[in-house]
C-alpha cells in the first residue's frame, strides 16, 4: 500500500494540473490513471480553445482568471512550450437567429466584466479575411485564444513529475473507501492507495467512482470528433467557433488546422469500448468549414479522431469538496470545455485542499446544486 498526502484519480489535463499545483505547494501526490497513456481522453482530443466568450457565467471566473494570470506564463512556468496564443475568438453567425444566440451569450459575459462585443460581417472579415460572405456577424473577444492540448496536458504531467509527483498508469480504480467517516483509500484492481485527500478528475469514469461513496453526479457521455489537416501556409491566428456549432478550430504553430464539429447525434453514439469516428461526421465538419472558409476546400485531412466528453446536466463542471464524504474533492463534468480552464481548476483545487480561499469564485460549481424539478430553490 502506497501512502500520499493527495491521491488524484485521472491523469488528464485536470488531474495533471491539480498534481502540479499541489506538488508545488509541497504535497506528496500520487496520480492514478486507468489508461497506459497519460492524457489519453478528452485532454488530447479537444480543439485547444482557451476562451472566455461563450461560457456560462458560473465558470467564467475560472476562465478569466486563467487567461489573465496563468496561460500567458504557462510555457515558462512548466518549462515546455504549450503554444499559447492570445489572438482572440470569433464566434460566427450566418443567420439572424445565430446573431440573437451570440448576442445573448455576449451580453451575459459582458455583465461579468468580459470584453466581448458583437461585430458585423465586414468587421469580421477585417479581422479574418478568409471568412466567406455567408458570415453576417460574430461575437469578438480579443483576449481569447488557443493552445496545444497535447503539449499542455503532457507539460503539466512532466512538470508535476519533476516536482516529485508519482504517476501510476494502467491502474483501474474500482472504489473509494471511507475510514472513520472520511474518504481515505482508493482501491484499484491490484493495489490500495491511501491519502488524506482524494481528487476525482476521471472524466466520465468519475460518475461510477463517486457512486462507490454514495455520490451521484448527473452526467452523460457525448462523442466529440475532430480532424487535422496537413500543414498549410500561415493564414490566421484567431480561434474560431460558430453559433451553429457546425465547426470550431484554429491553425496550429505547425501550420495544420485542428477542427472539430458535430452532426447532431453526439449524445446517441455507440460506445464500443473505444471512441470511434462515425463515417458521417468528418464529411459534415468539412461541409461546415468549406462554407465558412472556402479556401480550405483543397486542404488535405491527414487524421480524424474521436473522444468522449463528460456532459453535466447543466453544462458546467463540479469543482467542490463534498460534505457527506470529507476528504473527497470533485473536479469533473467539464462538458467538452475543460481544457481552457484547466490551469485555473488545478489552482483552485490545490487551494481547496490547502484550506485557502479559492482565487476566483467557484460557488456556482457545487456538487449539491441539482434538485428535482418540483423543488423550489432560493
Amino acid at each position: 500500500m502506497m501512502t500520499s498526502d493527495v491521491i488524484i484519480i485521472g491523469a488528464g489535463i485536470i488531474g495533471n494540473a491539480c498534481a502540479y499545483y499541489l506538488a508545488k505547494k509541497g504535497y506528496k501526490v500520487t496520480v492514478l490513471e486507468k489508461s497506459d497513456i497519460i492524457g489519453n481522453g478528452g485532454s488530447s482530443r479537444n480543439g485547444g480553445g482557451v476562451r472566455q466568450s461563450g461560457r456560462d457565467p458560473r465558470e467564467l471566473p475560472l476562465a478569466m482568471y486563467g487567461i489573465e494570470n496563468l496561460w500567458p506564463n504557462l510555457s515558462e512556468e512548466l518549462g515546455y512550450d504549450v503554444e499559447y496564443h492570445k489572438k482572440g475568438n470569433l464566434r460566427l453567425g450566418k443567420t439572424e437567429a445565430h446573431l440573437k444566440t451570440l448576442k445573448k451569450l455576449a451580453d451575459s459575459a459582458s455583465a461579468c466584466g468580459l470584453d466581448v462585443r458583437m461585430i458585423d460581417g465586414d468587421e469580421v472579415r477585417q479581422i479574418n479575411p478568409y471568412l466567406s460572405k455567408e458570415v453576417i456577424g460574430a461575437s469578438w473577444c480579443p483576449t481569447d485564444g488557443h493552445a496545444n492540448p497535447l503539449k499542455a496536458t503532457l507539460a503539466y504531467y512532466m512538470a508535476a513529475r519533476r516536482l516529485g509527483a508519482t504517476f501510476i498508469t494502467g491502474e483501474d480504480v474500482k472504489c473509494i473507501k471511507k475510514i472513520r467517516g472520511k474518504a481515505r483509500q482508493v482501491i484499484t484492481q491490484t493495489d490500495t492507495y491511501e491519502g488524506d485527500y482524494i481528487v476525482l478528475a476521471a472524466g466520465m469514469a468519475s460518475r461510477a467512482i463517486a457512486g462507490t461513496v454514495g455520490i451521484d453526479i448527473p452526467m452523460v457521455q457525448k462523442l466529440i470528433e475532430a480532424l487535422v489537416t496537413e500543414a498549410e501556409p500561415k493564414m490566421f491566428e484567431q480561434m474560431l467557433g460558430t453559433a451553429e456549432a457546425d465547426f470550431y478550430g484554429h491553425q496550429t504553430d505547425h501550420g495544420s488546422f485542428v477542427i472539430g464539429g458535430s452532426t447532431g447525434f453526439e449524445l446517441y453514439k455507440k460506445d464500443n469500448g473505444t471512441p470511434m469516428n462515425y463515417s458521417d461526421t468528418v464529411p459534415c465538419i468539412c461541409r461546415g468549414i468549406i462554407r465558412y472558409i472556402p479556401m480550405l476546400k483543397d486542404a488535405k485531412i491527414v487524421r480524424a479522431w474521436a473522444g468522449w466528453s463528460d456532459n453535466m446536466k447543466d453544462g458546467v463542471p463540479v469543482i467542490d469538496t463534498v460534505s457527506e464524504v470529507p476528504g473527497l474533492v470533485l473536479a469533473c463534468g467539464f462538458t467538452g470545455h475543460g481544457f481552457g480552464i484547466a490551469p485555473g481548476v488545478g489552482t483552485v483545487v490545490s487551494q481547496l485542499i490547502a484550506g485557502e480561499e479559492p482565487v476566483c469564485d467557484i460557488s456556482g460549481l457545487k456538487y449539491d446544486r441539482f434538485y428535482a424539478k418540483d423543488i423550489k430553490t432560493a
Partner: protein
Amino acid sequence: MSELSNRSKDIGEFVPMPDDDMIVCRCEEVTKGEIRKAVHEGLWTIAEIRRYLRCGMGLCQGQTCAKLVKGIVARELKCSPALLEPATSRAPMRPTEMHVFADETEETDL
C-alpha cells in the same frame, strides 16, 4: 499494470550520444536525441512521444519511422519493444481533400 506503470521508476540519466542529431521522423524532422530526451522527461509510451514531438504525425503517418521510434524508446527504457503499444492508426488511409469528404452525399459515377 506492467513494469512501465510507475512513471517514477529509475531509468538512469539522459546521456548525450554522438548520433543524437540524426533525423528519425523525416516528415516532421524529429531527431533521435529529441526522442531519447522525451523518454527521460517521462514520456514512456509511443502515443505520448508522438503527441509531444509529432514524430509519426506527418504525411506518411509514421509508416517510415514507427519501428525506429519504438526501438529507440525501448532501448532508453531498457525494456522489450513488444511492451510498447504502437500509436493508433487513424482514418483517412491517405491524406484526403476536404471537398472530397464534403461531397459524400452526392451521387457520382466513380
